[in-house]
Structure formats: structure tokens, C-alpha cells
């Protein structure tokens, strides 16, 4: 075995160990920390599989944004009181969950092992047709040109998640703002992050969006970075979570799917098919759609983290 192979096996074992730690951790917070580490390790695995786009997404969404979502949910569960402690899952539930997971994992492993050699791939065709889109990154071409309908539906799933979070608001708070993300009087270190990291992060986010056309990157990763920057600003209390009935917030939330649908419909007139792009204009249209998806993602994730409205609608 070469050194790289040994490192790969070590990495795989580490991922498994951290996964076990995620399940075995006694406290919610410990489990979430393990989960974040798991996501970062998984990102390295994707890099080793030469899939930098997936690695970026895993690090930004799988590890970062999901991590903060879980931390905030954990904190809310804790403040919800010990009442839920009585409803702790029993041994039988644990066992059936374990059996189900084992079954799914075995089935997946079986499928992977049963794949024909070489495994079926559309990569050569994608590589060949890439020039028609004007893009340099085949992953972006797959997401926005060839499988654009799937990508649009993904954004609609994000919106559904927002609807789900908002729908648990009590009636008297409806239209108001979620609770602030951070404590009053934020510490100096937090203010430093807010003042230095946020401008840099916005720059990096826009850069990752822009290079996504030709290199690893794109709206999803960039959106996650921008979302993180907005969350830092809210945690440092430089701005508060917006009211759920504010028009600009709702426009930002729906802008991505809306522009996507309009562009898809325009394709019927301009190129003869739903979601077809006219020759030569594919790249500008794709970037235009992606820009609004970036906005939707950057708005949706912090709204999900901020949670349902907790303060009544007021001035």
C-alpha cells in the first residue's frame, strides 16, 4: 500500500469513529460538535475523491449551516425544559432505529459493491456538451442547465422548510420577528469578527459564486457563506432577525425559484422548450438565475436558524 492509500484508509476509519461518537455522545451539544467534525472530515473525503464542488458544499452546508441549526435547536430544546426528558426513547426504539440504519447501510453497501465495472457514467457526454453552455465547470452545467428542474425544486424545498419553521409560531407573534440570535452586549471578540470577517466573507462568497461558472464553487456554497456572514452580524447584534412579514425578506426568499421558473418559461418562447436556453445566451442566463438563487439561499438559511417569530408585531 502506498502512503496515500494508508492515509485514505485512516481517513475512512476516522470518519466512522466520529460517526459513532455522534451517536454515542451523551449531550446534544457534544453530538453536534461531533457532527460538525464529521462533516469536515467528509469534506476531506470528497476532496480525496476529486469532487471539490461536493466538498465545498459538505463543508459549508453539511457541516457549517447544519451545525448551527442543530446547536440552536439543541439550545431551544434545553430551554423548553425537562418536560421532554420523560419522553426519552426507550431501548426498543433505539434497537429498531439501529436495525433500520443497519439495513439501509447494508443495502447501500450491497448496491455499491454490485455496481458494474466500470460504473455507468454520463461524464464523457457532459464534458463534450459543456462548450454549448459556455460554462467551464461541468457541475454547474449539470445543476443549472441539464438538471435545472431538480435544482429549482431544491430551492422550493428550502422555501417549504421556511414555511415549516414559521408555521410553529403562535398566533399572537405572527408577523413579528424571531428572537435575537445573540446575547445583549456582545463580547469584543464577536465584534471583531463582525467587523473584520464579515466584509472579507462577503467578498469570498461573491468570489465563489462568480468562479462557480468555471471552477469549483457556485450559488449553493456561496449562498451558505453569505448566510454565515449574516448570521455573524445577527449574533453580534449589529442587526436583528427581520420580521417574518417584511416584504423584502419574502421577496428575497422567493426570488431564486421565481426567477428560475420565469427563465424556464421564457425558454419555451426563446428556445422551444421548458428550461431550454437559447444558443449563445446560456451562460448569461445561467449566471442571472444563479445570482437570484444565491440571494434565496443566503436569506433562507439564516431565517431557518433564527426560527419562528417570538416577538409580537410592533414598531
Amino acid at each position, binding site marked *: 500500500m502506498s502512503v496515500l492509500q494508508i492515509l485514505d484508509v485512516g481517513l475512512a476509519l476516522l470518519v466512522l469513529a466520529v460517526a459513532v461518537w455522534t451517536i454515542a455522545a451523551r449531550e446534544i451539544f457534544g453530538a453536534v460538535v461531533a457532527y460538525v467534525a464529521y462533516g469536515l472530515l467528509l469534506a476531506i473525503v470528497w476532496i480525496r475523491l476529486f469532487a471539490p464542488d461536493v466538498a465545498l458544499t459538505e463543508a459549508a452546508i453539511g457541516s457549517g449551516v447544519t451545525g448551527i441549526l442543530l446547536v440552536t435547536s439543541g439550545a431551544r430544546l434545553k430551554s423548553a425544559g425537562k418536560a421532554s426528558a420523560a419522553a426519552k426513547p426507550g431501548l426498543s426504539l433505539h434497537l429498531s432505529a439501529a436495525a433500520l440504519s443497519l439495513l439501509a447501510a447494508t443495502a447501500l453497501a450491497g448496491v455499491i459493491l454490485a455496481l458494474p465495472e466500470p460504473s455507468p457514467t454520463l461524464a464523457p457526454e457532459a464534458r463534450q456538451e459543456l462548450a454549448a453552455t459556455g460554462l467551464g465547470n461541468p457541475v454547474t452545467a449539470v445543476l443549472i442547465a441539464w438538471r435545472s428542474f431538480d435544482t429549482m425544486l431544491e430551492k422550493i424545498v428550502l422555501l417549504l422548510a421556511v414555511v415549516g419553521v414559521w408555521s410553529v409560531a403562535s398566533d399572537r407573534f405572527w408577523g413579528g420577528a424571531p428572537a435575537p440570535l445573540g446575547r445583549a452586549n456582545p463580547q469584543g*471578540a*464577536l465584534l471583531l469578527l463582525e467587523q473584520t*470577517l464579515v466584509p472579507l466573507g462577503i467578498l469570498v462568497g461573491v468570489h465563489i459564486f462568480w468562479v462557480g461558472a468555471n471552477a469549483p464553487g457556485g450559488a449553493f456554497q456561496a449562498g451558505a457563506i453569505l448566510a454565515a456572514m449574516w448570521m455573524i452580524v445577527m449574533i453580534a447584534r449589529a442587526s436583528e432577525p427581520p420580521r417574518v412579514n417584511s416584504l423584502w425578506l419574502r421577496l428575497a426568499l422567493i426570488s431564486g425559484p421565481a426567477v428560475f421558473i420565469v427563465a424556464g418559461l421564457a425558454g419555451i418562447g426563446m428556445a422551444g422548450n421548458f428550461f431550454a436556453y437559447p444558443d449563445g445566451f446560456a451562460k448569461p442566463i445561467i449566471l442571472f438565475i444563479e445570482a437570484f438563487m444565491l440571494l434565496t439561499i443566503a436569506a433562507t438559511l439564516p431565517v431557518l436558524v433564527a426560527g419562528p417569530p417570538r416577538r409580537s408585531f410592533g414598531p
Partner: protein
Amino acid sequence: MNFALDLFSIAAIAAGAFFFFAGSVGLLRFPDSLTRLHALSKADNLGLGLVVLGLLPRVGSLLDALKLLAIWALVLLSGAASAQLIGRALRRRGGDE
């Protein structure tokens, strides 16, 4: 010249790896949270700095070199800030376990 640069890279990256190793040992062996935090931030700052230093002669372009330095600077910033935040949180809780 090339040989000297390779040697420099190896030396710097090995020194960086040593700091990561020392930081990990400290994380596992130090008695309380604040000292563990101290060990960890040293590993991040110096270890990563030395690794970046060792990689600098090997990059293809000036832009790549600047990106490497930016990564180090960002890790410094976030590492220092989060270490501060964790330290304050520990003091507020009053416990040093």
C-alpha cells in the same frame, strides 16, 4: 536552488506538523479547559503558519500564494476570536473543568 527550496519546505512543514502534534497532545493531556484551549490555538496559529510557509515556494502563481496566506490569516482571526469566546464562556460559567 530547487534542492534548497525543497529542503526548506520539508523543514517548515515538519515543524508545522510538530506544532499540530504538540497541540493535540496538549489537548488530550492538559488538566483544564483554558490550558487545553491554549494548546489548541498554538497549534492552529503556528502549525498552520509553518505549513503555509513551507507550501509557499511550491505554488504556481502569486495569486495562489496570496490565497494560502489569506487562509492562514482567516484561520488566525477565527481561531483567536473563538478561543476568546470559549474562554469567556468558561469564566462566565465559573467552572474550570
